[in-house]
């Protein structure tokens, strides 16, 4: 897991990831926060295999997550905010519920 340098000059804020509470420094991107919390943050819409942040600059779309109910947000392009609810995405979006469902 990635770690925050101990000398960091930021307050910690709280967010949830798939319902679990986590903490990360204020001002960082959602993708950065995810890297400190989980080994992978998405399952591919094609094979269902795990994926995680890859480029951190908005070009690869491997860090897509659902943020506060809005799916397919580029986690590396969104700044983490206090109380954010982040959900990992598994496979193809289910339009009825607005969340994701299993591949089959």
């Amino acid at each position, binding site marked *: *897991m*990635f*770690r*925050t*340098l101990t*000398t*960091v*000059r*930021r307050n910690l804020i709280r967010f949830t990831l798939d319902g679990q509470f986590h903490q990360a*420094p204020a*001002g*960082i*991107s959602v993708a*950065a926060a995810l*890297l*400190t919390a989980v*080994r*992978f*943050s998405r399952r*591919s819409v*094609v*094979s269902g*295999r*795990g*994926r*995680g*942040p*890859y*480029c*951190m*600059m*908005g*070009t*690869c*779309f*491997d860090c*897509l997550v659902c943020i506060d109910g809005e799916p*397919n947000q580029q986690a*590396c*392009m969104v*700044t983490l905010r206090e109380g954010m609810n982040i959900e990992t995405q598994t496979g193809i979006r289910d339009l009825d519920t607005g969340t994701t469902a299993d591949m089959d």
Partner: protein
Amino acid sequence: MKARYSLVVVGAGPAGMAAARCAAAHGVDVALLDEQERPGGQIYRSVDDSPLSDPSLLGSDYLYGRQHVAEFRNADIDYFPGTTVWNLDRNRDVSVLVDGKSRGLGADRIVIATGAQERPMPVPGWQLPGVMTAGAGQILLKSAAIVPPDDVVLAGSGPLLLLMASQYLKAGVGIQAILDTTPRSNRPGAVRHLIGALESASYLAKGMGLIASIRQSRVPVYKEVTALNAHGDEVLEAVRFNSRGRDHELPTGTLMLHIGVIPQVHLAMAADCEVRWDEAQLCWRPGLDQWLCSTVPGIGIAGDGAGIVGARASQLQGRLAGLQCVYELGALTRDQRDLKAVAIRKTLDKHLAIRPFLDSMYRPSPEFLTPVDDTMVCRCEEVSAGEIREIARLGCQGPNQAKAFSRCGMGPCQGRQCGSTVAALIAEVQGRKISDVGYYRVRPPVKPITLGQMGNS
């Protein structure tokens, strides 16, 4: 945001900030649109709001950005952070996404300064969680003070990889190993450019300093690495490779890859700006005149988005592009423009003198341009190099037909991670040149947007 500006600049990195500042200083009404929340681009990420207690570990080139960003913030520019440009057409109509809503604006002149992206480095297993670009690692350090676990392996070639290693060492990150994929055969070609590179001697000195600091650190460096691949079931577990004829395996959860950067040309291509294959840099770059004007009237392109030149040269190019806009908008005469450009060009030449050396010294190994069959080329749609080769053998003429036949490039990244590889594979199979094979036809939206946003509903 007004409905129309004299100049709209896209991108708040060194080139975009400089172009906007130059135009604003001459009284031009400028808007700068940037996808990030803060100015500086990737190179000066968070430079005026660093989470690090000691940002100097990132080096003096990074700290130089502070002043640039401060001056940019003080200039009379309508700056719109968090604003994604999803379309630009040849009539200079811009469509942006801001606060989740789409809106349009017009411009008399456009400067595209969208910078670079990491050159895709497709190796088997590069899609596994735990594998990321070295640039991603650097962004995490600059913007979040977040670092990988102490078993991290860095692999690839080029100045950024060395810089990254030295920054990690200063930050106290334990690097397990550095895998240097620079082919030995690059050296003779590079040496020929060494004399020219002396014009920008400070770059050479910095490079040697980085190499010395890595040597002192005693981090194992494996040379002439080939057959690199990432292994793991659900996530990365090990890296396997060959170095000077011997096979190795290193257990690790984090692998950072880097084989240089390439221009981000999608926005320019969406606007119909012509791009050309650059054999020295192995990338597509827009065709530009000496004032950085593209083939579409009123659209200029500056900085790494126009061909890789580095941060300082990008800033100078931004100024040139800015001057040209000011001239075209009638606020400078031709003579005034030319006079102001003399000193800029002189300094620019000094910064560019290192490029032929860097381009040949760190030219990526063919192994990463045309990867082995079981490598996933298109990460989004999971299309392998083997499948692209099979399609190429059918006679498929280029990346657009390959896309139609295999779905490669149809995912959300819109071909940014596979476009160059697909073209190289077709060229390899059919014995053609990449310049002849071509690139994807890039169409809007250049970043995915929702139907609700697109339809303003």
